[in-house]
């Protein structure tokens, strides 16, 4: 690790647990509302009103869960790696806690993407699981999440656990471009995919607008659960700090 670079003071204040706790208290309600509204609208629109696919009929509607989950799983990983890097370099406590909170959430979302994909695969490919690039690299992503999570829970010392998790998530960052591009690599390696999922521009607007809404909704929902988890983590780690004690007394 390089020597820690000195940053302006506000940068550190930004990362103070107390600041995060306060700001997240104010932001949380808005994100909850946004998540509920977006998810409901997107869900109703997507499931009830969007036209059925001419090839796949109604089974395609699972796209409204599958794609947001798949996209979010990757974003969450990137966030986890960035937060980890920040906590490694600048020893910022909040970044560490955010990274720690990302792992289980990301793992859950990755599982969701995998499961919805598998459910979708049954009617379209005739199999729950196929060894295709997307699927495999997604599975790797899940394993990476599990690995980071296991490091966080196995190492008793919180600081070391955070650093170890950060190193692994940074190393695993290599997987993200693999998820994106290995489709092509893989096709050249093994038999070409019989079914290409990427011909999206042909998708009519009535289909993709609800999809976009669902993606946004998923992001809001993610923000909510991330804040909740991080807040619990803050309370746990800072339990003896003055302001936490004070808050507990007030309640």
């Amino acid at each position, binding site marked *: *690790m390089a020597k820690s670079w000195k940053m302006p003071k506000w940068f550190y204040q930004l990362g103070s647990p107390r600041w995060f706790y306060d700001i997240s208290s104010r932001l949380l309600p808005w994100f909850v509302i946004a998540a509920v509204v977006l998810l409901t609208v997107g869900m109703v629109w997507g499931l009830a009103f969007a036209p059925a696919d001419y090839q796949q009929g109604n089974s395609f509607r699972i796209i409204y869960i599958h794609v947001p989950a798949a996209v979010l799983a990757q974003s969450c990983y990137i966030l986890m790696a960035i937060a980890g890097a920040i906590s490694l370099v600048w020893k910022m406590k909040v970044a560490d806690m955010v990274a720690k909170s990302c792992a289980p959430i990301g793992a859950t979302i990755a599982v969701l993407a995998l499961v919805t994909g598998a459910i979708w695969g049954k009617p379209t490919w005739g199999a729950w699981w196929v060894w295709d690039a997307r699927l495999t690299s997604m599975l790797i992503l899940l*394993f990476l999440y599990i*690995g980071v999570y296991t*490091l966080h829970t196995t190492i008793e010392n919180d600081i070391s656990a955070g*650093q170890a998790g950060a*190193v692994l998530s940074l*190393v695993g960052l290599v997987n993200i471009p693999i998820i994106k591009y290995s489709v092509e690599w*893989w096709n050249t*390696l093994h038999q070409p995919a019989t079914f290409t999922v990427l011909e999206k521009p042909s998708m009519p607007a009535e289909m993709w607008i609800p999809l976009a809404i669902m993606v946004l909704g998923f992001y809001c929902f993610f923000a909510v659960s991330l804040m909740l988890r991080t807040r619990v983590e803050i309370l746990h780690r800072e339990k003896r700090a003055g302001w936490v004690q004070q808050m507990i007394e007030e309640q």
Partner: protein
Amino acid sequence: MTNKAASDLSLSRVFVMTLKRDLLLAYRRRNDLVSPLVFFLMVATLFPLGVSPEPQFLSEVAAGVVWVAALLSTLLSMDSLFRSDFDDGSLEQMLLSPQPMALLVVAKVCAHWMISGLPLTIMSPLLAVMLFLPSEGLSALVLTLLIGTPTLSLIGAIGAGLTVGLRKGGVLITLLVLPLYIPVLIFGTGAVQAATGGLPIAGYLAILGAILALGIVLAPLAIAAALKISVSN
């Protein structure tokens, strides 16, 4: 002699001494010299036993089986890379010496490769013959193993560094490292399959080489960081 030259000299000396020490340690417990190889052989033996002994069938799967065996045997030997140094305090001494940790780590990984990946690569033609690999694929197999196994050692060492402080990292390391091994496996077997099919393999080798280059540059830093974290825990 300038100061700079003197310190370069001492760096290369430390590298050589550490490499030598690890090779000597491996030589003293000679069984380890043989065993990754034997494990490699055994996985390749189990496979026909457990699945099917037909030559036709085997020749199709040979490349994959050899690669999977190489990967598993590297993985298996990985946990011991830093464990004994951690247990007896040598790792502390390394961290508290004025030498750059990344250098010491590279020497150790190098030694590890020389007693696992390298002999494995040398042995692979034997396995290929046992599994009826078509002869066109042979050189591709050896080449990909030669470029691929150092990468496996480097990646594995990151996992080993992260888990060495835990009371039992042996299995956790698998969880951390195996996902990262998958790309190497895919390109390695891909190249051999291409070669058996008469296709060019330069592209695969280039990618494997790129991964190795990336590994050589980045892994030592990650390993050194991981070890510092593990010891300070």
